[in-house]
């Protein structure tokens, strides 16, 4: 078939966009679960859950869409990552199921409410940790023979991936706390202001470890960053700037800026990760073109994506618009 465009690049962009959307959007609602046990009181917990209840499942849409899209556009990623992360994937799914069901039942529960609170907290934390470990495993790379994963069951679980796992837990908690600054008032907001700098500190510490460690395990990353001082150095600079903005805006008690700047931290570190690894999608051997599916399959699905993604984006914006403003006791009004 005549290949008018390099669809693989388009798909890399689509999947990359979907993944970023997922991390930013599900990040702050997973964060509510991570912060749940530490919340000042039960009323605060109700408000936290209410603040994300109408939107959380729309946020998770991006994960499922990304997963299905991967199988269709980059099957090698799907068939190497999932076996390599076998146990981690199970933990991720179990975590998401437990927290998802907690959203449904905590509001309907009376005596069993605390059980659903724990289900929400543990599920969210486990799912976030598993996602962070996936990022770490991606940086480490995968042992393959031919097009097949050939490593062991727990190769993904190393001190490094534990650190990236904890890092993402801290990062999602930070997204969660800055979201609370934006969406709540009074005691809960005060608490969120208080914990935000600490969470930021934890996240930056993990970034530092990852940034020092990555060039050592992957020489091509070292070459890319240190042989020529190039334009990509603007990315870590922007991360640092965003971190500075978070701190300053928290001190000034601004409400929107901490959340926006935290999203900036995520965006620029995500771009930094891509800048390090591009075009490798199954490191250390396979690029996005090695991992791509057939041209006509990519094209067949692209039509559907281009039709549905604008609708999902529209629906998402509409939901956020409907539930704009501060969340009060007992939900949005």
């Amino acid at each position, binding site marked *: 078939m005549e290949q008018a465009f390099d669809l693989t690049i388009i798909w890399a962009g689509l999947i990359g966009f979907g993944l970023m959307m997922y991390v930013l959007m599900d990040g702050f609602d997973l964060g509510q679960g991570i912060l749940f046990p530490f919340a000042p009181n039960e009323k605060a917990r109700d408000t936290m859950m209410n603040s994300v209840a109408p939107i959380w499942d729309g946020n998770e849409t991006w994960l*499922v*869409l990304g997963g299905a899209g991967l199988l269709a556009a980059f*099957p090698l990623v*799907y068939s190497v990552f999932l*076996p390599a992360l*076998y146990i981690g994937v199970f933990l991720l799914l179990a975590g998401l199921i437990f927290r998802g069901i907690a959203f449904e039942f905590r509001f309907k529960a*009376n005596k069993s409410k605390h059980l659903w609170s724990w289900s929400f907290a543990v599920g969210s934390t486990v799912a976030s940790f598993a996602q962070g470990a996936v990022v770490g495993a991606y940086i480490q790379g995968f042992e393959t023979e031919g097009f097949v994963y050939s490593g062991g069951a727990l190769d993904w679980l190393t001190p490094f991936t534990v650190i990236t796992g904890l890092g993402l837990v801290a990062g999602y908690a930070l997204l969660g706390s800055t979201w609370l600054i934006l969406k709540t008032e009074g005691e809960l907001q005060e608490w969120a202001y208080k914990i935000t700098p600490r969470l930021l500190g934890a996240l930056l510490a993990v970034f530092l470890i990852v940034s020092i460690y990555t060039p050592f395990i992957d020489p091509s990353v070292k070459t890319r960053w240190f042989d020529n001082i190039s334009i990509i150095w603007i990315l870590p600079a922007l991360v640092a700037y965003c971190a500075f903005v978070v701190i300053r805006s928290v001190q000034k008690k601004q409400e929107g800026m901490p959340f926006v700047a935290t999203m900036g931290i995520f965006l620029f570190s995500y771009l930094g990760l891509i800048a390090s690894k591009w075009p490798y999608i199954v490191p250390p051997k396979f690029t996005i073109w090695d991992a791509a599916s057939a041209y006509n*399959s990519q094209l067949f699905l692209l039509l559907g994506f281009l039709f549905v993604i604008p609708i999902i984006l529209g629906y998402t914006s509409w939901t956020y618009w409907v539930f704009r403003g501060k969340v009060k006791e007992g939900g949005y009004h």
Partner: protein
Amino acid sequence: MELDPLMLSRMQFAFVVCFHAIFPVFTIGLASTIAGFEALHFKTGNPVWLTLSKFWIQVFAVVFGIGVVSGIVMSFQFGTNWSNFSYATANFLGPVLSYEVLTAFFLEASFLGVLLFGRDKVPQGVHLFAAIMVATGTFISSFWILAANSLMQTPDGLELINGMYVVRSWTDALFTASFGYRFMHMGLASFLTAALVVAGVSAWFILQKRELEANRKALSVALWFLLILAPAQTLVGDYHGLNTLKYQPTKVAAMEGNWETSKGVPLLLFAIPDQENQTNHFEIAIPKLASLILTHDWDGELPGLKEVAVEEQPPVFAVFWAFRIMVGLGLLMIVFGVWGLVLRLGGRYYQTPLFLNGLRLMSISPFIAVLAGWVVTEMGRAPWLIYGQMTHAQGLTPSLTGGMALFTLIGYIVVYSLVFSAGIYYLLKVFRGGLEKANAPHEMDEIERPMRPFSAAHAAIDEEV
């Protein structure tokens, strides 16, 4: 004992897929039922249909919610446990499964919200339209899933290049030889499931003397559907069987417990298939009937299991008995359909306790029949994952160990038992609440909370403190 990752992965897949399958098979039929109730209300203005629709929408919401969650696990299992299969078929399965996801999200983003929460916010005609679109959408969803499964049964339109199938013709690959029969068979199964559940639940309400007028109407409609659909399903099933005979003769041989290729094959009513000795014990048979059904000729020749090597035979005992359970329950459904008609002619269909109690029990029969049917078609394909081309063993994830597979098998059983028993427990609460609770004005504090499917139901999951 050495842990076999292949056997454990098959068990895990069977467990998760069986658990998942019972939800969509119900929601597909129920979505159409609700659209029907809405249409009747729109046309007649009779509030009874509205009462019914409001109740069944709540049931739909909960079942849909559970189905979506359990479906997510399915989409990851292909990669975790069957990575070779996923990789080889990704050019086809990837887009097809993605389209299913897109369909579901498109529905959820557009029409489901209007159906569940928009009754007082949009004109009645728009609400009806949303109901029809949700019903249509569930069928489009099942189209993609059944196309994927049919390709594994009767592969077509693909070419294997360097260990990966490339789609040569999307129409051939989507509409394979068995697809039409499978789609009809599952579509009817969904309608039958909805009819039998509505009949069973309505019968239960009638026995309790609750909302008699509405429940009688629901029972009446359900019984008409049962009367027509149950025989129609037998007919479609027969054609599906003929199609299977043509493309997967070994599966039919297992269904019939027929070891030797021979003419005038009897229909076995009872037998204990013995795979080790390649024979049956304790046969009770009707002479020549299997040949007549499958070839439309008393002396027609049917292929036996011994046509293929023992390693290429499916597990005969399971396929043989699952087929009998499915057909037996199908016949029982016909009996209830006809019984209902006889009682109706005497005007007694809603006041015969024996019949009503029978219907209560029958409400679980379609689920068992559907699972049995899937056991027939899936285990009957064994040892093939893609019929004639890739075996289960070849499709398995190479790096998977028995220990890993056992860990997740137990894990999924635990997670599903905990989480979904809560879901089913809640569903039963919604049933107990009945039409009365579904139509009662509920507390307003819930209204602006999560606009999730479950939110359409208003029961509490446990007792008040």
